[in-house]
């Protein structure tokens, strides 16, 4: 038997951070003990109508207290159900899943777009503990309803972009990079595909290695069903075709190995 498991975990905190954005802490010392920044958990509905787990990124890991935090957006009936739970309720969860980020370099540039922001918190926290590592984070929001910004400021120099210009740089995360003239020796990103595509191009042009975290519809969450694949540049050593499993080989991929 391996390092992943599925359990019923107790919710120790559930708060609303912004419109449709919720923060949930669960007690799961086994998973908290082995989880890494950039990994995710699969959350299951209690309704027999909704069979498939929802992949939710890990936002914070409290190894001492054996707890894990997830910040998620209500996007449908499943996440709506999670958001209506109460402290003390329990939830079915499987994990930790995926590979997570590899912590490298001395000047880190983190990109979080929308619901891709949460995994940046644990990552920033861990990078800040690396000796001599400078942590910068660019957070992209739709509008001025910001979330997790202040918490990230504890570990990183934070820059903000909003689509409507109501906070920070008007435009996207790369517009904020231009405005502030940011440089780095390692890029970490999570967010919508168009943003990742832009970062992939930017990283290539600037010769900065980049780790991109992808999202895809999942069924098994552990690499068996081949639902959540992404296109790879080279023939993958596991699949023997040009694709990789987001849930198992990812969700974090080197920008050079994937086609977005």
């Amino acid at each position, binding site marked *: 038997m391996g390092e992943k498991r599925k359990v019923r975990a107790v919710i120790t905190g559930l708060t609303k951070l912004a419109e449709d954005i919720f923060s949930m802490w669960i007690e799961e010392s086994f998973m908290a003990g082995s989880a890494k920044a950039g990994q995710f958990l699969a959350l299951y509905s209690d309704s027999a109508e909704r069979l498939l787990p929802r992949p939710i990124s890990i936002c914070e890991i409290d190894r001492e207290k054996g707890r894990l935090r997830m910040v998620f957006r209500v996007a449908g009936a499943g996440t709506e159900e999670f958001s209506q739970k109460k402290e003390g309720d329990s939830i079915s969860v499987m994990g930790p899943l995926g590979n997570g980020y590899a912590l490298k370099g001395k000047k880190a540039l983190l990109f979080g777009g929308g619901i891709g922001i949460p995994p940046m918190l644990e990552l920033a926290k861990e990078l800040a503990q690396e000796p001599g590592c400078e942590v910068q984070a660019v957070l992209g929001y739709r509008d001025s309803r910001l979330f997790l910004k202040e918490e990230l400021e504890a570990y990183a120099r934070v820059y903000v972009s909003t689509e409507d210009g109501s906070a920070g740089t008007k435009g996207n995360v790369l517009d904020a990079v231009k405005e502030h003239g940011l440089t780095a020796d390692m890029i970490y990103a999570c967010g919508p595909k168009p943003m990742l595509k832009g970062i992939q191009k930017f990283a290539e042009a600037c010769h900065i290695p980049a780790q991109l975290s992808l999202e895809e519809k999942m*069924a098994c969450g552990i690499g068996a*069903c081949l639902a959540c694949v992404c296109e790879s540049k080279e023939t993958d050593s596991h699949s023997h075709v040009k694709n990789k499993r987001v849930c198992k080989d990812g969700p974090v991929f080197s920008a050079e190995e994937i086609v977005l």
Partner: protein
Amino acid sequence: MNTEVVIAGVSLKNPVMTASGTFGSGEEYSEFVDLNRLGGVVTKGMANVPWPGNKTPRIAEIACGMMNAIGLQNPGIDVFIKRDLPFLKQFHTNIIVNVCGKTIEDYCEVVERLSDEPDVSMLEINISCPNVKEGGIAFGQDPKAAERITSEVKKRARQPIIMKLSPNVTDITVMAKAAQEGGADAISLINTLTGMKIDINRRTFAVANKTGGVSGPAIKPIAVRMVYQAANAVKIPVIGMGGIMTVEDALEFIMAGATAVSIGTANFANPYATIEVIEGIERFMENNGVEDIHELIGCVK
């Protein structure tokens, strides 16, 4: 208490197997499940060469089920023999390789490649995948084509062959009899039902393939009905599947006439589903004074 069943001379310690395509080649789920406890592991469909599968999104959730159009992505039989088979050989369970192809020759090539592998107990021939344009379903909806491919594969197969049937037909008994006529040692059913889901916000199809195979508890009553009809139409054993989530579901199939059952979509909702069904069968037998599982197989007439 006896939970052992025999299919075409192959003994299964219990009637619970995995359903092809939901369990990879066992490696991923071995983190959750002791494969030694399973009656058999049915692998993902293997072709003669690697198949890339369909574009994403490949799946969508539906009420009480899901829809998939993976497109039979697989690394090809050579990789399977070199990498996956040695992994599975470590366990005391039956290895059943699901075989897919585009032409009869493709299927026969895979079957011949496996003829030197005594650790493979049986072959399940997939003539029912709704998600690939050629092959597969082309054989699964025409009784003459089904009989022909069955007899061609049977001629070359060293192991017993199970023909996996499609529910996307007018009369399942016609297809079951065609497989039997062609020399099949067993049949398994049902594969997924062809469905469609529209994403109203994006105004497009929920899966890139437009249509997908529907599975899960939503289709279970259809599957039980077809297993019952097929089991009463042929003499060869029937392996039942389609939406089994719990032991109660598995017992429905067994009582309808299935000698064994396969657990598919349930693995996604609960990676321990296979073991829970095995333990549940034992508990049911004990609680109901059933000495031998054969007392239950096809007991509902």
